[in-house]
């Protein structure tokens, strides 16, 4: 059953700055189906965070939605009232942030905070506390009842991130957005959190939008992956397809640069030379042209469209056209 939960349709978002409009997102289109885990990869500054805040409509004041729609269960969130959005956040869509050390209120106990999140529920305080303890147990915090009385600084980073996940899943949302939830943690904890997320996803059947720049984690966890570069989608498709048969040079280079992918010991780790283009002053043609080793004359003049190459596999590169024509 492929029921679409979240549809992002030709979304373009600008930031108004003193230097002119910064085109943070351009023509983003992808879907998240019910119960599916979709990964978003891309280097820093590619628009991942803008995308998340656009979905939740928690954007900076200078944000301008230029075009497109964000449809959640068929309803355009960009047209929803602030009140409707507030009722959606934390109930139907919730989020786990990157840095677990910063996401809890330092002066309230975990129990107080977990009680506060349930402000919509009409249950008694005791029931809410029991629910909070149950959720802490579900994410693997031992002795949850006693832990509810403790303050955030009494927990380790990994535990705090698990608490954040417990809080996000408390209202059994349909969509969980995970914004680089393991970036601030070390490798062992990363594995634990990923495994826990997989278990919880099976238990709660929620869709997960997983943002990361760690390809290994994406490959492990996600069903589908969206590769973003400089505010645009360059390739999207099934995880297996993307990793074994990347159709965009950027994806190919990203996979090559993943340290987990390197077989031999190297003095210098591979990188992609060059820099992300200035989003306020975009060059014409393909945005990856300057850093691409297979750039052609056509790349400088025309923007490559995001074509469907196979069922569910899209890429935006003229190389695929060459293959198709020759």
């Amino acid at each position: 059953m492929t029921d679409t939960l979240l549809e992002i349709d030709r979304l373009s978002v600008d930031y108004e700055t003193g230097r002119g409009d910064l085109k943070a997102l351009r023509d983003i289109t992808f879907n998240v189906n019910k119960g599916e885990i979709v990964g978003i990869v891309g280097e820093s500054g590619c628009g991942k965070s803008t995308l998340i805040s656009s979905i939740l409509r928690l954007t900076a004041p200078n944000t301008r939605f230029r075009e497109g729609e964000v449809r959640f269960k068929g309803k355009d969130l960009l047209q929803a009232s602030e009140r409707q959005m507030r009722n959606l956040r934390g109930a139907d869509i919730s989020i786990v942030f990157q840095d677990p050390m910063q996401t809890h209120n330092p002066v309230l106990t975990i129990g107080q905070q977990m009680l506060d999140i349930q402000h919509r529920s009409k249950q008694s305080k005791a029931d809410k506390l029991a629910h909070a303890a149950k959720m802490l147990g579900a994410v693997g915090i031992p002795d949850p009842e006693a832990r509810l009385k403790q303050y955030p600084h009494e927990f380790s980073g990994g535990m705090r991130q698990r608490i954040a996940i417990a809080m996000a899943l408390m209202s059994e949302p349909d969509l969980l957005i995970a914004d680089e939830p393991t970036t601030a943690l070390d490798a062992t904890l990363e594995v634990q959190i990923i495994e826990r997320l997989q278990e919880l996803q099976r238990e709660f059947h929620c869709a997960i939008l997983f943002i990361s720049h760690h390809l290994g984690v994406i490959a492990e966890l996600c069903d589908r992956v969206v590769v973003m570069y400089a505010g645009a989608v360059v390739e999207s498709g099934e995880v297996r397809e993307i990793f074994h048969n990347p159709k965009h040079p950027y994806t190919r280079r990203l996979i090559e640069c993943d340290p987990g992918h390197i077989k031999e010991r190297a003095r210098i780790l591979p990188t992609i030379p060059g820099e992300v283009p200035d989003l306020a002053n975009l060059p014409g043609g393909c945005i990856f042209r300057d850093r691409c080793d297979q750039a052609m004359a056509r790349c400088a003049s025309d923007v490559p469209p995001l074509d469907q190459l196979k069922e569910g596999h899209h890429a935006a590169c003229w190389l695929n056209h060459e293959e198709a024509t020759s």
Partner: protein
Amino acid sequence: MEKSRSELGQIIIGVARDPLGLMGLIIVGVIVFCAIFAYWIVPYDPIAMDIKSRLQGPSTAHLLGTDQLGRDTFSRVIAGGQVALKVALPAVFGAMAIGLTLGMIAGYGPKWLDNLLMLFFDTIRSFPTVMFALAVVALIGPSLQTVVFVVMATSIPTYGRVARTQTLTLRNSEFILAERSMGASMARILGVHMLPNIIGVLAVLAAMDIPTVIALEAGLSFLGLGVKPPTPSWGALLKDGYSLIRQTPWLVVGGGLPIILATLGFTFLGESLRDVVDPKLRKQR
């Protein structure tokens, strides 16, 4: 509830460990005790006149002597403390409550509201306190309420500005974003999440502000703009003693010493409280 009580206990223990804090705690304790139980402590009615025994020095009958109307100075000092706290506490807590609310709204609300409130704060601050007091007294006459009102109105901007700055630093912190992404309303964010983060700093500010207010009340009473005679006030005592300093120095001592002690006591307590409560210092413990 039990948790917050033990936390309050921890704060008091922390203050008492600091020698200056302990001193402040004792002085403030004595002043508050005397103010609460003034009715039972005073040996004489503080406003009862006894012309026959006027301007006496200290004796077993009158510990600090009597004034020009034969009123017992010791009784007036004790009762004056009650008046001082009656002015200081409502004024400081009132100013704190209003300043906190306005400051948080200024810090979290839209830019135009912030500008409007800051303009309001700056306008109040630009009035010299004593001139403002003179104007208000001229309008509604000197009384305890007038003093409370003047002190409160002039100290609202101080609390408002601190609350605003704290709110501004907190509003962009990640945990507030996390609360917003969990669907918390503005009232919930301010009341449940911001307030406990700000209140500590403001409480310390209030403790440091109490001596200023006591001195201000004494000053206004000294100028005859404060509480109406015959209500005993440290400032009024000082004023009476000032004109009679050649006949008897005891009135000046009776009025001045408690002002000095109260100012020192509350300042010590406030500073020690700041060291204990300040979240930045607390983390290092």
